[in-house]
């Protein structure tokens, strides 16, 4: 637990010292305005909650992918990676702690989007199933942190991780049904989306802000947890392989 907390605390301190890492909080209101304008202009006021949920997920995913995904690469470039590996702590656990801190901060995007919807358009997030909403956000954050470990492990192999992070964001927005529900995508794509935790999360988030009862709530929450957990384990495995390769090739440090 100490390595996890060490990572968690470190990341909060880094963010405090580097406010530029909070840039998604400046873009989230813009996405909120764009999506709400689209659905309102199209006369689909029933989709306003969907338009509010999308920027929340996008903000969280941005933090996971860009901040979390670049943690190992950043430590490598700063000459830290080797010395962290030479300590008794597991790098994967430290990284998970750091990503969890990032995701905790990212969750404030929910409040921001809610406030923008209310202040600019007078639209509020309808808390039809508040418990389900809170729980879905929680497991979504967990799954994003687990998935970010995979990216953190893979990005360290690339020369320009930001390019890959940028490329990885949009497929996840589509396959995760962030704004457009999976059910509206072409049929042949839909099976692929089942292995993306965000497709379960986004559907569940939308369901939790609608008055109708939530179908199979626990099963869907379980799927998010399962995919997120498996992602973390896979990420830890990939990280171990990547680090072993780098210890062999002598590439843990940059010159």
């Amino acid at each position, binding site marked *: 637990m100490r390595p996890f907390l*060490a990572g968690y605390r*470190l990341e909060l*301190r880094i963010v405090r010292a580097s406010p530029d890492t909070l840039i998604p909080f400046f873009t989230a209101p813009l996405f909120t305005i764009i999506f709400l304008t689209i659905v309102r202009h199209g006369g689909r006021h029933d989709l306003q909650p969907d338009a509010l949920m999308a920027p929340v997920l996008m903000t969280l995913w941005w933090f996971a992918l860009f901040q979390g995904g670049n943690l190992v690469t950043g430590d490598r470039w700063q000459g830290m990676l080797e*010395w*962290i590996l030479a300590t*008794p*702590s597991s790098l994967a656990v430290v990284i998970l702690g750091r990503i969890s801190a990032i995701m905790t901060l990212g969750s404030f995007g929910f409040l921001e989007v809610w406030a923008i919807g209310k202040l600019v358009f007078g639209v509020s997030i309808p808390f039809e199933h508040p418990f389900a909403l809170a729980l879905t956000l929680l497991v979504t954050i967990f799954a994003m942190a687990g998935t970010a470990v995979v990216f953190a492990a893979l990005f360290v192999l690339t020369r320009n991780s930001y390019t890959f992070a940028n490329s990885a964001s949009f497929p996840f927005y589509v396959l995760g049904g962030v704004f457009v529900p999976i059910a509206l995508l072409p049929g042949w794509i839909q099976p692929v989306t089942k292995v993306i935790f965000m497709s379960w999360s986004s559907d569940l988030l939308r369901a939790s802000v609608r008055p109708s009862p939530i179908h199979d709530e626990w099963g869907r929450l379980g799927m998010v947890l399962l995919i997120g957990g498996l992602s973390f384990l896979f990420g830890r495995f990939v990280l171990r392989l990547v680090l072993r390769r780098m210890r062999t090739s002598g590439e843990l440090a940059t010159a």
Partner: protein
Amino acid sequence: MMLRVTESRPVESAVDVQEIRRVFTPRKREPVTALDGVSLTIPVGEVHGLLGPNGAGKTTLVKILSTVLLPTSGKASVLGHDVVEEARAVRPQIGIVFGGERGLYWRLSGRQNLEYWGALYKLSRAEIRERTERLLDRVGLTDRADERVETYSRGMKQRLHLARGLMGDAKVLFLDEPTTGMDPLAAREFRALITELRGEGRTILLATHDMAEAEALCDRVTLIDHGAIIATESPRTLGRVILRFQRIDVEGAGEEVLGRIAGLAGVESVAPAEGGARIEVAETGVTADVLKLLVDAGVTSVRTSLPSLEEVYVHLIGDRGLRV
């Protein structure tokens, strides 16, 4: 020239390296052998110097012992634990200090950096707090502890590196060019600290190319070059090994006598020096012949001197200058 100095193997070793070889294979380039069959044993409590020029293989050896680099072949252990197979058992026992400015979170304070490191060594909160204060005081950074590392001078960063290396209360310390960037006063304080650490029973492997530092601090010194060990001995013994490279400084010697000396077998060089000439001999016993010639020629201002570790270093490794 290769000297073979017999090394007695101690019973209890903190570091044991057997026939370690490390080859790097850069993309689209020829493989580079950084370590070529290095064997070395460091007993518990010893301060051991690893002396060699840039590119000699010092850092590669330190990285292998720190578990962050895998050897191509051979075995190495720290306090009885294999650095490859039992890396997890090695890591809580070691501390690493590298020279240079990297390896710290610049936007965090010195104290925050140390606290993070303490947590990575799985210390309790109370231990982290106590050790951070003690180490900051020990390296003279208490007054600047809460300022960002990016505002520190190079020497201060180096001292913070040292404190970081000590956070885990390591039994074995690997110091790679630790005084890089320190001013002379800070370097002297650093050396005093190393002496204190030795007094606490820690084993220290000090990789350096600073001969004076190795001579002042180390119980034994290993000379390494091109990935191979040239000799391992105490700095004093190593100096005696090349007593034959003794130098003689003379004043008032004429061209004729200097010419005769230059023609003697075993005289390596006769070169003009401030106020006279410097004669370097390359064989035991030649010094007496040189002195006899000088006295016979009526030269009385003669001074012989013992080799410093620097001279040992230059003679054994060669004067490569900046070439690596």
